């Protein structure tokens, strides 16, 4: 496959940035999108140019590091995959592919396609955990009876990898799918009940402090989420906050 790439280039956080066109040739349809980016970068390095900076780590869809807004969609046109799992077979020979960083005021660009998603870390630090004594006297989690549907729903919520596709996709740059998932994974389990009220209040307060937008319930985040996190988690977070505030 021969492709034209329109890529956002930005030297640092203060640079204005612009879209730059590149050509890549002989791309295999079996390559992942990141491997295609590797080919481009080798080409750029060989030509003595600055390679395109982009986030990646595990390259198997579980770390949440890769991002990229590809042809107008977070993680590209495929469903239920991260950018590292996106295959070039989703594109056609001589296609033009637009590649941009995840956009949100709370996700400032560090360089090219790399954005600062530490706002998510700060939201997690504000309450996305349970306090457990790990000195050796910890109770076996399996000794606590948990209904199957609650365990399943908690597990589904916990599959959120915090990639930020929900924020990148949302027309309001809302982080509610992420925060909803993190609140839900504990709210559904008995271990999460003790700190439930403080958790949801603190995480929502931190989310607002970070400057994320409001949820308009378009459902775009759910469609683009590589882990299929359900909008029901946002509804659950709303209920949790109401319960904690009354």
């Amino acid at each position, binding site marked *: 496959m021969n492709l034209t790439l*329109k890529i*956002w280039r930005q030297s640092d956080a203060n640079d204005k940035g612009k*879209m730059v066109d590149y050509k890549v040739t002989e791309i295999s349809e079996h390559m992942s999108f990141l491997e295609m980016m590797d080919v481009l970068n080798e080409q750029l390095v060989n030509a003595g140019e600055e390679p395109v900076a982009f986030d990646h780590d595990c390259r198997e869809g579980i770390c949440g590091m890769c991002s990229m*807004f590809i*042809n*107008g*969609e977070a993680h590209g*046109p495929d469903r239920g995959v991260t950018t590292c799992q996106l295959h070039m077979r989703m594109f056609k020979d001589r296609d033009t592919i*637009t590649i*941009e960083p995840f*956009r*949100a*005021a*709370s*996700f*400032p660009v560090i360089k090219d396609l790399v954005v600062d998603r530490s706002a998510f870390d700060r939201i997690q630090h504000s309450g996305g955990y349970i306090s457990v004594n790990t000195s050796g006297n910890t109770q076996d989690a399996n000794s606590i009876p948990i209904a199957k549907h609650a365990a399943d729903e908690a597990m589904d919520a916990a599959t959120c990898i915090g990639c930020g596709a929900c924020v990148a*996709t949302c*027309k*309001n*740059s*809302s982080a*509610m799918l992420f925060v909803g998932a993190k609140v839900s994974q504990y709210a559904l389990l008995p271990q999460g009940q003790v700190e439930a009220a403080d958790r949801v209040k603190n995480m*929502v*307060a931190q*989310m*607002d402090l970070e*400057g*994320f*937008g*409001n*949820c*308009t*319930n*378009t*459902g*775009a985040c759910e*469609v*683009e989420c590589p882990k299929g996190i359900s*909008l*029901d988690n*946002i*509804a*659950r*977070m*709303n*209920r949790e*906050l*109401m319960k904690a*505030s*009354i």
Partner: protein
Amino acid sequence: MSGFFKSSIGRKVAMALSAFFLMFFLLQHLAINILSVFSPETFNEVSHFMGTNPVVQFALQPVLIFAVVFHFVMGFILELKNSKANGVSYAKNNGAANSTWFSRNMIYSGITILAFIVLHFIDFWFPEINTKFIQGDWSGMLEGVDGYRYHEELVHKFVNPIRVGAYVVAFVFLGLHLAHGFTSAFQSMGGTVGRKKAAQNIGKAYSIIIPAGFIFIALYHHFNH
């Protein structure tokens, strides 16, 4: 609790509460107005009751005005906050791949409805307030009109085709606003019922029946005056 309504979720809950009230109001407004087509006498009787009943006039009407103003003001506040949260726009954004046009453009359908409400107030509400609260005439009568004046005034407003056209366009945008707003309000309130097929079908039916009913009334009186 005051902290709750300052949070992003609290503001959406407040939006949803005002939306529920307004959706109920639309239903009763249509139920009364449709009488103007089938039974002008009953329409006049009900209009006179609504226009002179102290509970409606001095309790429900102020709540309605507050709900309308609140819904618009909060809508604009949320839109401004969302714009600020967005940062730089995408060069290419394929919104149609993951959401409906009307869910992404509630602010524009809302602005169209706001413009309509201004016209609607000039047409009906301001003259009504003038007659009752400034001139002090609570009789519901008009010189040269047999019985109450309400049906005559309604029909008279729909003689002008430009006004009828404006009403029809506004009602189409109202339908688009309701098509997303109905189920969205449930989601904001923390309910998952809005995600159920049955609730979505009720939402679709509501967002078609309400505007279609008002359009029918406007067109009926325009062609039968």
